[in-house]
C-alpha cells in the first residue's frame, strides 16, 4: 500500500509563488521545487537533477525553463530536458517526473500518483456562487497521520464529546449515495468515483449561550460531509437552511506533520448586519472547532487497533474508502 492515497493535495498558497522565483517544498516526506512561469502556469518537480543529483533549487529560471546549476541542463515546465550545452542529442530519459498541478481557490494543488484519476473537486461556493458567501481562510499545523485528520469529520461521536454539541435525542449518521441537496446550486462537486459522503443529523439541538447571544435560532442541525480521499467539503444546515460551507484541503509535510487549509464560505442573508454577525460567529466557531481537532489529533496515539462502535459507521466506511485509494495498482 502506498503511504498516501492517490488524490489532490495542497502544495502551496498561490500568492506565495512569484514568476521566475524557485521555491522549495517539503511534501510527502520528499523535497520538491515549484515556480511560476511567465504564462502564469505552475511547474513543480522533484528537487534533484537526474544527471548528477544537484539541487535544482540552486538553479535559475531562464525562458520558463529551470536550469540546473551544475551542468546547465534545462527542463521545461513539462519536465522535458530541452537543452544540454555542447550536446546535440538529448537522451530520451533526461526528464523530470511530471507532477500534475492545478491552481484553484488561492491554492496550488498537486496530484499524488502518476496521472490524475479524477478531477480536482469543485468548491462551487468559492467559484460562480462566491457572491452569495463571505469567505474566510486559515491554515493549521497539525501533528498526526493524514488518515487521523481526515476521519475526524466522519467521527460522529466527536461532535458531542469534543465540540460540545448537545442534542436532546440520539445523533445519527447516514451514508450519502447522492449529494444531499441537489437543489442547492452551490453544492460542491466531487467525481463520483472518488466521493464518500455522510450526513450527520442532530435533531432537537440545544443551542449554547454563545449561539443564543449571536441570535442563532434553530433545533435541527445537519452536517453534510462530502469527502474525496484527501480532503472534504462540509456543509452545515440549521432547520434545513444552509449556514456555511467549508473546504478542508491537506498539505502533508511528512508522516506525522501536515498543514490543513480551511476555506469557510458563510452564506449571506438579506441583512448586512446579520451577515457580518453570522460571519464572525461561524468564523469563530470554525476556528475554535479546528483548534479542538488539532489538539485531539496531536494527543491521539495509535490508529492501528481502534475500538469502533455503531456510531462510528462514518469512520469505518471512511477507513475502507481511504484504503481503496492507497492500494497499489
Amino acid at each position, binding site marked *: 500500500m502506498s503511504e498516501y492515497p492517490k488524490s489532490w493535495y495542497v502544495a502551496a498558497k498561490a500568492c506565495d509563488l512569484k514568476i521566475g522565483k524557485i521555491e522549495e517544498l517539503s511534501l510527502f516526506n520528499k523535497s520538491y521545487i515549484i515556480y511560476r512561469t511567465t504564462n502564469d502556469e505552475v511547474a513543480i518537480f522533484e*528537487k*534533484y*537533477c*537526474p*544527471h*548528477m*543529483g*544537484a*539541487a535544482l*533549487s*540552486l538553479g535559475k529560471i531562464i525562458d520558463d525553463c529551470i536550469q540546473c*546549476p*551544475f*551542468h*546547465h541542463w534545462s527542463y521545461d515546465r513539462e519536465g522535458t530536458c530541452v537543452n*544540454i*550545452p*555542447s*550536446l546535440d542529442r538529448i*537522451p530520451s*530519459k*533526461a526528464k523530470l517526473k511530471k507532477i500534475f498541478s492545478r491552481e484553484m481557490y488561492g491554492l496550488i494543488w498537486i496530484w499524488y500518483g502518476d496521472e490524475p484519476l479524477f478531477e480536482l473537486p469543485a468548491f462551487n461556493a468559492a467559484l460562480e456562487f462566491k457572491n452569495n458567501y463571505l469567505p474566510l481562510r486559515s491554515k493549521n499545523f497539525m501533528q498526526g497521520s493524514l488518515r487521523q485528520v481526515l476521519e475526524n469529520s466522519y467521527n460522529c461521536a466527536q461532535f458531542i464529546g469534543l465540540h460540545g454539541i448537545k442534542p436532546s435525542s440520539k445523533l445519527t449518521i447516514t451514508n450519502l449515495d447522492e449529494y444531499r441537496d441537489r437543489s442547492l446550486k452551490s453544492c460542491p462537486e466531487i467525481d463520483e468515483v472518488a466521493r464518500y459522503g455522510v450526513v450527520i443529523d442532530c435533531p432537537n439541538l440545544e443551542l449554547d449561550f454563545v449561539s443564543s447571544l449571536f441570535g442563532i435560532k434553530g433545533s435541527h442541525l445537519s452536517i453534510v460531509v462530502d469527502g474525496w480521499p484527501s480532503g472534504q467539503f462540509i456543509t452545515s444546515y440549521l432547520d434545513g437552511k444552509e449556514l456555511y460551507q467549508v473546504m478542508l484541503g491537506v498539505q502533508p509535510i511528512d508522516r506525522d506533520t501536515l498543514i490543513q487549509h480551511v476555506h469557510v464560505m458563510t452564506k449571506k442573508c438579506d441583512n448586512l448586519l446579520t451577515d457580518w454577525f453570522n460571519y464572525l460567529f461561524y468564523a469563530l466557531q470554525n476556528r475554535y472547532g479546528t483548534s479542538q481537532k488539532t489538539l485531539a489529533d496531536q494527543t491521539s496515539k495509535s490508529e492501528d487497533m481502534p475500538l469502533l462502535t455503531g456510531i462510528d459507521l462514518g469512520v469505518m466506511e471512511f477507513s475502507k474508502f481511504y484504503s481503496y485509494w492507497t492500494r497499489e495498482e
Partner: protein
Amino acid sequence: MQHLNKIPKSWYIACPANHLSRYPVKFELFSKNMIGFRTKDHKIVFIDEKNFNSTIIKALEYKHVLNSKIRLLDRIFRKRIDEQTAADLDRLDVSCDKKYFVQESYGYIWIWNDDRPPLFAVPTYPTKNMTSYYSTGFSFYDVTKASVRRITENSFDYAHLTYLHGLESKNEIQVEVKDYSEKNIGESLVEPDYSFGAKLKWTEYTGVLGIVTNILGLNCEHFELDINNWPSGQVVTLYEDGVPKYELLLSTSPINQDTTVQHIKVMFAKTSSYLLRDLYYSMLSSLQIKLTSDQDMPIFKDISETENPIYVSYDDVVIKYRNYFEKMCEN
C-alpha cells in the same frame, strides 16, 4: 542519503594534526564515535569509544572536532590532564588491541578505516613533480553533505569546470585517463592497483576569465591538470606552459551518512628567483582555489545520490571513475 554504505578501504583524514593533543578528543568518523589522543611519547592513538575505559570517559569533557569555536577556545585554554588519567591513557595504548592504524603526515592525522593492516602507504605529497616548493602552503576544510565518491570524482567531471566554474578557453578541454600499468606507472602515488588518474588540458582562458587573468597576468597558452587519485583523495598538479605551479592535496573525512568533510591543502612551487613574484602568484592562486571550492560548496551541501543517473558523452571519465571506486569498495 545513504552514501556511507560504501566507502573504500583507504587513508582518510581524521583531523588536522594540531587539533590533537595529549587531551583526548572525541571524533565522529565512519559513523562511529571514537576518541583520539597522544601518548607521552607523542604517539597518536585512535580507539572506538565503545572500547574506551568508561571511567576515563566520565572524567573527561570531550570536544567535537567539527566545532571550530570550541576548538579555538580549547587551544587557548588547553586543558591539562592529571597524572593518573595520563597514566591510564598510556596503559590503554598498550593494552587495547583494537586501535586504528594512524599516521601523521603533511599536517594531518590520517586514519585507515579497517582493522587489518593498510593495503598501501599514505600517499606522497608534494609529489616528485614539484622539485622545488615553499614549505608553507595554505589549507582549509568544508563540511559537506556529499559522498566521498562525489567529492573525489568532481575533478574528473570536467564539464562542470565550464558550466559551474565558468572556465572558458580557446579550445575544448582535452581529457586523457591515465594508464598506470604502462608509461605512467611511476606517477601513481599509491600502488597502481589502487590508483586512478587523468590529465585535463586546455588552452588560453577566454571570455570574462580571459580578461581577468590577462589583467592579473595569470593567463598562459597551455594549462594542464595532472590528477593522481587514491580511493579517498587525490593530488592535483597544475602546470602552466609545462611548468608545475602548485599541488593541491584533496582528501576526505567521512563523518556519517549525511556529512563528509573535504580537506584541501595547497603547496606552491618555487618558479622564479623573485620571491615577491611567487608570493603574488600564490596569493592570487589561493584566492582562485578558495573561490572555486566555494562555488562547489552549495552543490555539495545539497546533493542527492541518483540511483540510475543519466549519463552523456562528457561523463565518460566520471563513469570510469565510478567503476574504479566501486571496485575499490569491493576490496
